[in-house]
């Protein structure tokens, strides 16, 4: 997947500026034309334009709203954004009749234990979006998910998640990518897999690992990975562009590994549902949480505000859009040595050796 670097001082505003071009019918038609769609219904154009505008409005509102309502606003915004993008990618309106998820009534001591049950594969928004954004990953036959599982799968939450939830598994591991003169090495610190019985077991949960990498090399401190020559990129990236690998979730004996955007969407559903339908659980948490869990929830919300539209953009540009803040038009060669410079160094050394009679 190609990386598109966009230089900006305000990624949030810039990503919405890029997305908002699709609130204009002519831009939407041009995009669909370029993707090869011949017949483009006007209704689809208006559905995209309207959903895109609504999405931006919901996200804007969520940035200033208190925690009482911000998750709900974000969930609505995310639904609109996924609807618009789904039409943009397929030129057909998704036949959504409901959320495609529900929150079962069971006791939860903390928010991380609240579960969500995917359902309705035909007309539920979740599975329909999963079909488009997560390679048709089947979510409805595997049973319920906890909010802890969902948050533990988001790369940008890993550190906070691990610190706070000492008893929960996380489902994403950071990768160090090392470039040398003759090869690219990727490695995972074994310390990052310590909540799993063995590194080998954790690695076996990574979907499509063998499509992307040679057999992992297990060293005392690292799991070393070399990419296959024609291996696909199965990386899951954080806001800053750090590579992670997703560990699958075992659901009824099947390992499933939904895309980050779907996991965020499910998490937002849970957090949007609670203030609206379980205020007796949500209000005390927002008003007087003493465990520190609130910090994780707030971080999850802020990551979604920043990164959810970014992930949508990635689908639209079929690449990874990386927002950076750096001066453009400068090529700094002071930290690399060019071939010509090496030749000069060799020549100088030979001249010196000849001058001193050592050569």
């Amino acid at each position, binding site marked *: 997947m190609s990386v598109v670097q966009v230089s900006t001082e305000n990624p949030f505003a810039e990503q919405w500026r890029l997305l908002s071009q699709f609130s204009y019918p002519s831009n939407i038609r041009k995009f669909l034309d370029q993707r090869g769609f011949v017949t483009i219904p006007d209704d689809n154009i208006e559905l995209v334009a309207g959903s895109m505008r609504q999405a931006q409005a919901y996200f804007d509102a969520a940035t200033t709203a208190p925690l009482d309502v911000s998750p709900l606003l974000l969930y609505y915004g995310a639904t609109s954004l996924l609807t618009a993008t789904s039409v943009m990618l397929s030129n057909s309106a998704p036949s959504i009749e409901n959320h495609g998820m529900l929150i079962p009534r069971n006791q939860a001591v903390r928010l991380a234990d609240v579960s969500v049950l995917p359902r309705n594969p035909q007309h539920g928004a979740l599975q329909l979006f999963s079909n488009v954004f997560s390679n048709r990953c089947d979510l409805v036959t595997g049973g319920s998910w906890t909010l802890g599982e969902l948050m533990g799968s988001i790369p940008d939450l890993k550190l906070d998640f691990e610190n706070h939830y000492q008893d929960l598994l996380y489902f994403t591991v950071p990768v160090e990518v090392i470039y040398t003169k003759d090869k690219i090495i990727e490695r995972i610190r074994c310390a990052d897999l310590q909540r799993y019985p063995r590194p080998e077991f954790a690695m076996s949960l990574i979907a499509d690992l063998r499509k992307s990498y040679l057999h992992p090399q297990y060293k005392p401190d690292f799991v070393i990975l070399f990419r296959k*020559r024609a291996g696909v990129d199965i990386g899951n990236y954080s806001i800053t562009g750090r590579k992670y690998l997703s560990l699958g979730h075992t659901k009824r004996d099947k390992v499933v590994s939904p895309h980050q955007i779907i996991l965020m969407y499910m998490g937002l559903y849970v957090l949007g549902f609670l203030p609206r339908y379980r205020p007796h659980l949500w209000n005390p948490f927002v008003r007087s949480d003493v465990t520190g869990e609130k910090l994780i929830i707030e971080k999850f919300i802020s990551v979604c505000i920043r990164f959810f539209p970014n992930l949508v953009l990635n689908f639209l540009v079929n690449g990874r859009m990386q927002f950076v803040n750096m001066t453009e038009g400068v090529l700094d060669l002071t930290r690399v040595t060019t071939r010509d410079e090496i030749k000069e160094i060799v020549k100088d050394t030979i001249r010196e050796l000849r001058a001193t009679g050592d050569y």
Partner: protein
Amino acid sequence: MSIRRAAYDLCKSVWSSAIRVDAQTTIRNLNTATEEQQRTGNHRASFGQAARHLRAQLMGYLFVHRDKERLENNYPPLRGTAGLTEGEKRILDTAHRQLEELNKKCTSRLVELDPNCGPAVNPYFKYGYQIPEDVENVPLFDVQLADTLVDSFRKHPAISVALESGEKFRAAVPEAQRPSVTDIAQAVLNLEKGLLVAGPLHAPRQLWELLVAQRPGAPNQAWLDYCCALTCINASLATLDELLYQAIISNRLPTLDDDSIIDIGNVVGTWASTGFTIKYQPTEESGFGNLGLILVKAEIIDRRFDLCRVEAVEVRVSEEFGDTVDITVREIDENLNPYSHLLPRREPR
């Protein structure tokens, strides 16, 4: 049927041959040592190492056994190491004799027409080893498959080049000025030595200079064509012998494929051959970095390779950055020839 295909079929028959287990056990005993043997020093791993270093298959063991005292001066670990037992030597002689006989059959028509080239096309000539008369007759491979291979090998393109160029050379040069049998064999040895020193990614500069300096039809060109063709035949037989030897000691050649290859460097065509570099992750299948034959099951710029010869190895072991092996290989064509570009028309490919 290509020579390579016929050779693969013949190798499969080695697996079920009567002598294979004995030969395999003998070679294993000469290359391994138990912990107890390592502790006491009572093993022959150094003997095996010296033999393998020669890259002469079974001949390596027989040669080291015969010349052990002399070799000890250059390779002190051999000192104090026991040589082959009578039984081991008999097994190796029996198996080796069949390789030599197969080689002779493959080139019998060529040698019949041009007796002077016999030693030059014999990969074992340089060792001057006499196989005892009284070795047993326990087959190493299937006789019919061997005949099929011989039929294929007799159509080796280098044989007709050798015959044609040899005739041209003899027609142009008076008998008194022609090289002797030994000179021809030595020229072939020198040419291959130069090719090996240059490595798969380069051709010897001297060879290049000789090739570009030729006038078409000159005796020198005929001589060069002759030497090149004989070198190709010698090297093809050496590849055949190595394949059969590998079939004795294992059930498959080390194999590199997309499950072990990290990267493949540029494919380089020289005046002599095609070569390239491969970086791979060592595994049971891919091997841990040995010189010799290897199967490369990968596509490189829309081109599929098969049998290659590893001529340089660099193993890197790191707890932090992983284990990798870098090898430089020379492609071996379907005639088992590692130097196919030496045959006319010669040019870098």
